[in-house]
């Protein structure tokens, strides 16, 4: 273990890779701090630049964006009172009041410090649990993997936005998209007579199209609804280091708890930074001796929010690397990037590519350090950049998406794929279909089909899925997750109806 980690450190420690991590972190922070841009979008914009790189450089750059992105919400949250990403909504609850009371530097410093500690603790969780889960899942045969993928999809479909039917439908639709083109037996499927469709759709243009268009055009629509006037903000911030040190020493338990919650939530499929920061904020409030201070600018609130959402980064890598099943949208895209570089995430990765796994650990750690330095030194600039209006941002990002899709294979067909799936994604989003299960389906489709038929070739009875204990357990969990979200949906519906009746 230490051996490959040192080797990985040596590879990541070269000036060019370090430079890439710095660029990644900077871009991530910028992306995270612009409201309506999100970590996912930052990753999507950066990935075309990794095509020509070797895997270690590419992955380091992406990890940098990841680490920076989850911390970037602090800046706009504290300075503008607008969460830069959904995963820093609760940061605003206490960060903004503290800044309003004349201590923006303190709020930022606490946020950055807890972000840093959250990342470190989550890397420890990843280093410990990643190989453990991977070696356990080495025993998984096709039946178990099939059942696990089905479970991951139903879980994400149920959790994504309380629209179970549409979520499950979206997951199936995502899987269906991967069946276009030549299959594992070199039979042509759904080409509709177009030769270009023969090779199927590349995952990345499909993902970018579905996600980026709906998100960006949604931002434009929101812009019309709420004509917000530009706030005058004071970007002149000094960081009171002594005060922050004192604040943080009083928050040891809170930091640890919030980071562990973040790592755990990150590792669960279907959840992510947004769930993590709400859950951990709520827990911190429950455990606090002064719960009434939450929401008025208490350091505990900022620590709970920022430690947890940054810890998601490390936690989310656990299922992606150990099982080959990404838990949320940014990870699904990260997995797409790894596949693009010829690496199949999964238990074998720890044996076949230990250096790359080590490189991910190392870049997470280095990224965390770079993130602290960048945030503390450049906070004024980030605050200014986060004011870039959507009107300028949207065309630029759309253009970058187009170039990214093209650069993948130097193929114009991919831009059309991007465009068509952009329209599909926008329409589905308008019809309130959750898009995360769909994108997860696109990422997992090939593997699901391969594993399913390998299982059936080994034993032609479908009952084997139920007679093998682990696969039966995963399928039972899948059914349970559906039943649970059905129950949740009903409850929400009842509450809605009750509210409606009261209004009448």
């Amino acid at each position: 273990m230490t051996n490959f980690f040192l080797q990985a450190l040596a590879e990541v420690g070269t000036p060019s890779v370090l430079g890439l991590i710095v660029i990644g972190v900077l871009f991530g922070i910028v992306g995270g701090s612009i409201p309506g841009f999100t970590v996912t979008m930052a990753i999507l914009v950066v990935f075309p630049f990794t095509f020509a790189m070797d895997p270690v450089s590419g992955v380091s750059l992406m990890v940098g964006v990841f680490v920076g992105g989850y911390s970037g919400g602090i800046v706009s949250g504290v300075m503008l009172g607008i969460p830069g990403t959904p995963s820093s909504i609760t940061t605003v609850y206490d960060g903004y009041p503290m800044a309003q009371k004349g201590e923006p530097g303190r709020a930022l410093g606490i946020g950055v410090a807890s972000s840093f500690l959250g990342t470190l603790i989550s890397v420890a969780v990843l280093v410990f649990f990643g190989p453990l889960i991977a070696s356990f899942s080495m025993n998984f045969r096709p039946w178990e993997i099939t059942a696990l993928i089905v479970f991951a999809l139903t879980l994400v479909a149920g959790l994504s936005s309380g629209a179970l039917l549409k979520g499950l439908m979206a997951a199936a639709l995502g899987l269906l998209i991967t069946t276009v083109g030549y299959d594992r037996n070199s039979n042509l499927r759904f080409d509709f007579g177009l030769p270009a469709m023969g090779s199927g759709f590349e995952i990345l243009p499909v993902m970018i199209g579905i996600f980026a268009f709906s998100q960006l055009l949604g931002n434009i629509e929101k812009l019309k609804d709420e004509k917000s006037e530009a706030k005058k903000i004071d970007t002149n911030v000094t960081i009171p280091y002594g005060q922050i040190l004192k604040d943080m020493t009083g928050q040891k338990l809170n930091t640890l708890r919030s980071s562990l919650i973040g790592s755990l939530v990150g590792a669960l499929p279907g959840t992510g930074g947004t769930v993590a920061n709400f859950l951990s904020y709520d827990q911190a409030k429950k455990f606090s001796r002064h719960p009434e201070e939450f929401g008025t600018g208490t350091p505990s609130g900022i620590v709970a929010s920022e430690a947890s959402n940054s810890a998601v980064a490390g936690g989310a890598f656990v299922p992606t690397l150990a099982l080959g099943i990404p838990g949320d949208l940014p990870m699904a895209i990260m997995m797409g990037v790894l596949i693009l570089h010829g690496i199949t995430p999964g238990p074998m990765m720890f044996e076949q590519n230990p250096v790359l796994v080590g490189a991910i650990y190392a870049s997470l750690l280095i990224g965390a350090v770079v993130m602290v330095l960048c945030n503390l030194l450049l906070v004024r600039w980030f605050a200014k950049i986060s004011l870039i209006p959507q009107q300028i941002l949207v065309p630029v990002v759309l253009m970058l998406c187009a170039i990214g899709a093209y650069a993948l294979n130097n193929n114009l067909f991919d831009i059309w794929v991007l465009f068509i799936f952009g329209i599909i994604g926008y329409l589905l989003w308008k019809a309130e279909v959750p898009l995360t299960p769909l994108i997860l389906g696109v990422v997992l489709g090939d593997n699901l089909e391969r594993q399913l038929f390998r299982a059936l070739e080994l034993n032609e009875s479908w009952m084997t899925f139920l007679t093998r204990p682990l696969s039966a357990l995963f399928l039972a969990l899948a059914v349970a997750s559906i039943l649970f979200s059905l129950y949740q949906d009903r409850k929400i519906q009842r509450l809605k109806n009750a509210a409606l009746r009261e209004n009448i």
Partner: protein
Amino acid sequence: MLTLTKDRALALALLLIVAVMWVESGSIAPPTSWQPYGSALFPRILLVVIGVFSLLILVRSLLTKAPERAGAKQLIGEWFQSRRTILALFLLFGLYAALLPVVGYIAATIGFLVASLALLMGINTRRKWMINLTLSFTLAIVIFVVFRYGLNVWLP
């Protein structure tokens, strides 16, 4: 008469897609003794799943009453009015994709950026034009340089 709600439109569109793809799945090579399950089985399972869920969405949307809305004609007019920017942006992007191979990366990108920035920012002041043009030209060229010389990716 039934009004077309979001859910109903979604379900009907999906059912149409399922039907088309089911017919198309007939032309996939049939199973052989080597491949007893064939290549059509997996997509067909998915088509059935999507079909069933679409039907459920349709049934559910028929059970709940559609909100009362104004006449259809006015509705379409309003819809176009409010979505004009989005539609225009989609059109511009389509045009961009079509023009890329014809006029080359630099010209197409500058064209797309100038047009879409003008669409979103407006063109009522000189300052907006200045920002628009400076940004479009520098960005198009910077990206070109980064890709061609930094990353060795040739753009059209």
